[in-house]
Structures are given as structure tokens and as C-alpha cells.
């Protein structure tokens, strides 16, 4: 498909903190958001991505390049995704899930949300509230009642020492 012109088209993406990135169009259009912009003829200049910061965008572009270099082999793509996400902490994963959602990249969205679910697996309710910035809106009595109903699910949960 890309052999038509001989030289692959390169796009310039701009993060919300004004960093510029060059990326091959064939890799960037993994994002449906970017693909739509290209199809609408916005690809000539710089594509502004208002909801993604530079650090996250760099990471997403690494993923785009990595995954598009793998031929159509679902097993290999899966193991690339697993390896790509293996060392990411919760904050990075949260940035990436928001970026994948904004950029409309379903394969990254699936992988990152599954990874976040896996990270949360043995975490306490307090940890989840802190990481997601959620305020506890239960009264102490209500909270105790909900907890009591599912008491066994609090067994084997990691102790709350993470910040």
C-alpha cells in the first residue's frame, strides 16, 4: 500500500505542551482521530492534539511505531503490547488510557484498560480512591454495611503503604 510514492508520508503531531513529533502516517493512522484528520485534509500542517501531553504522546508514538512494524500476527502483537505496558506505573497507565480514548485507538485502549484492571487486582479501596481521585460519599454506617456484605473480598488485599 505504501509503495505508491516511494517515500512514506510523515505527519507532525503537536502535544498540548507544544512538543512536536514526527511520525509515519502509516503508523499514526492507528488512531482513528488522526486518520479522520488526515482524510479531512488537515495533515498538511501540524496536527494539534489538545488532550495529550508530550510525555504521553512520546510513549503513544513508540507504541504506534512498534505495533505497526509487526506483521499481521495477533500473538506477536499481543506479546509486544504486554512487554510495552509491563513496566508502566499507574499514573502513566492513566495518562495512556485517556490518550488512547481521545485518539480512538481501540487496541491500545483494550490493552491499557486490562493492564489497569490487573494493577488494581489486589489493591485496597483506599488505594483506588486515592489513585482515581474519588471522594468517599458514603456515611460511615453505609460504608460499613456495603463492606460487610462482601467481607470475603477484602481477604488477601495488599496493605495500604503506597503513598
Amino acid at each position, binding site marked *: 500500500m505504501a509503495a505508491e510514492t516511494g517515500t512514506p508520508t510523515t505527519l507532525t503531531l503537536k502535544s498540548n505542551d507544544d512538543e512536536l513529533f514526527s511520525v509515519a502516517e502509516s503508523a499514526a493512522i492507528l488512531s482513528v482521530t488522526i486518520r479522520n484528520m488526515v482524510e479531512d485534509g488537515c495533515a498538511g500542517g501540524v496536527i494539534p492534539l489538545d488532550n495529550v*501531553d508530550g510525555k504521553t504522546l512520546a510513549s503513544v508514538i513508540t507504541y504506534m511505531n512498534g505495533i505497526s512494524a509487526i506483521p499481521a500476527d495477533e500473538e506477536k502483537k499481543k506479546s509486544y503490547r504486554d512487554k510495552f505496558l509491563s513496566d508502566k506505573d499507574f499514573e502513566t497507565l492513566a495518562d495512556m488510557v485517556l490518550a488512547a480514548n481521545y485518539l480512538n485507538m481501540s487496541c491500545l*485502549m483494550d490493552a491499557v484498560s486490562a493492564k489497569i484492571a490487573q494493577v488494581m487486582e489486589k489493591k485496597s479501596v483506599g488505594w483506588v480512591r486515592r489513585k482515581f481521585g474519588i471522594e468517599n460519599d458514603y456515611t460511615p454506617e453505609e460504608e460499613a454495611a456495603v463492606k460487610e456484605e462482601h467481607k470475603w473480598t477484602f481477604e488477601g488485599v495488599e496493605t495500604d503503604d503506597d503513598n
Partner: protein
Amino acid sequence: MARMKLDRWFIPLEIIEIILSKSSVKSLLRFKTVCKSWNILISDSVFIKNHLHQSKTSNLHQNLFLLRNSSKSSVSEELSLVRFEDPKFQTVQLLKTPLGLDIVLSHCDGVLLLTDSSYRQFGLWNPSTRTQTTFRVPRKFGGCSKSYGLYHDPITGDFNVFVICTNYYRVFSCKNNAWTLKHEFAEDRYSCEPEVFVDGVFYWVKRTRHITIYYYEITYFDPRDDKLKTLPEPENTDGTGSIYLVELKGRLCMYCNVGRNNDHTKVRFWMKEKGPENNHWEEFITVENILIELRDPTRRRFVVYNPGEKIVKDVEDSVFKQIEESMHFGLRLLPFIDSLF
């Protein structure tokens, strides 16, 4: 810029929903305590359906099975949760079945239909949520029950228990907590074990004899119009002798010996399209050069048992693998489905 920093950790509920749909049931029940909106989300019927879909399709639970624990005595109120780690099964956890109901009759969407040796007391038990409900068979129904099936109606959300007897068919609705007599069969059915329950329909093989030759026919009772029907077999089966039915990957599967001289070393399998309204068959696999006795239609993978050599083989995507026999396989192996139902 300042706004971005403040909103950095604000993850909208629709993304939280995607993340939670990939979480385990144990975590989800714990996360009901996080806040009211999470509790509402996790209890929502649409979310529960999405979560079940994720649970069925993800690799996470693909290799988890439930196995009746038979190590100590013949009666055990425990099920083992086992993980298949090529080529062995490893026990992950022991689960105690509720109220002494230690016989698993059927299962659907992560919920098991249990009874005890009286076949009067029944229970639905979800090992993921550890919840259960119980009900009884009224005395007036008599004791000729033969086959049991559990069906989760996708439209009403009701769990229905189907019981088929020699000459009648009845259904228990969990929502209404009531039994209904659905159909009385005019003729005696001849049932060839095992009867198979798929998509809320029982299928069985009916055998009729004409002079010295036996004829086999797949018969089913369609609960939607209360009629007994014949299911056409696949074309050109080249089969000799009896035909058999199992459930595989949620679909009806038929197999028969296609080798010469009834030598049972060449067996072919067909799968029917999903749903009682679609009677199209497709050829699935032909197995050769092993003596087959089908023991465990695991509904996800396919375990065949070679009684002579005591080896178990596993078919997944037409590939045979030899499995080390580390536990007793004469018992049923059920797929484990992590489900909020």
C-alpha cells in the same frame, strides 16, 4: 496548563466502566465500597452483561476449570478450581459447595445448578460471588427426572431450570420461584446418554429398530412452541452405527465413527450453528488413530480420553496435545466463568 494539572487524574466514568469490565468479580465486589457511583455501576445489569462477555472472551480465565474433588472419599462437598498449564492441571483453590449440595447438574454464565443425592433440593450457586439460592421440587412431580439444564434467558434475565423426564418436561423460573409443566410427551422417548442441553434446548438421540437395523435420529424439544422436532443430521456423514452428541464451545456437536468395521479409531465431529433456530452443520474435525471415548466436553476445549493407555488429550483449534494425567478424569470438568450474576 494549570487546568490540565488539576484534572490530570480525572478519569471519566465511561473509561472507568471499561476498566472495571476487565476486573475480577472479587475485586468488583470490594470496589462497591469505593463510592456510590461505582456501586451503582457494578450492580447495573448492562454492566454485568458486558463484564460476562469480557470474562468469556479474555484469555485470563480461558484455562480455568472446576473439577469435583474426589481425592478423599466418594462424597465431597468441595470443587477444585484448576488451571490448565500445559501439560498439567494445577489446583488453584478449593471451593466448598453450599448446603451440602454436592452434585453439579448443569451450568450457565458462571452459575452452577446443584443438587444432593435426594434430587429434591436444588441450588443455584455462583462460585465467583459466593452467592446462592435454593428451591425444591414439589412431591407431586414424582421421581422420574432424567436430565437437567440451566438456561439464562438473555431477554428476561431469568434463570430457568429445565427438567426433562420420561414423559414430560418442566421448567422452574427463578424469578417467579415457580414450576411450570411445559409439555407431556405422547410417545415414550428413547434417550441415548448423554442428553445435551444447549441454548435452552435439550437434544437427544432417538433410536428406532426396523427388523435388524437400528436407525438414529436427533430429536429436540423446542420450548418456544412446545413441540418435539427432528434435527436433520449433517449431509454425507458416512457414519456407521450410533451417533453421539456433546456440547462444545456453547454449540451442539455431533460425532460418529467413520472408520471401517466399527474400529472406533476414526471419529468425525460436526458443529451446529449457535441458537435453536439455526440448524446448519459444519464439519469440525476428524480424529484418527486413537481409541476415543469421549469423556469431557468441557465446552471450551475438548478433552478426549483413551481408556487403554490412560492418557488424556486436548483438542484446541484442531491441535492434539498430550496432557499429563495428574488427577482423576472420570469426572466432569466444567469451564470456570468469572461472573457477577
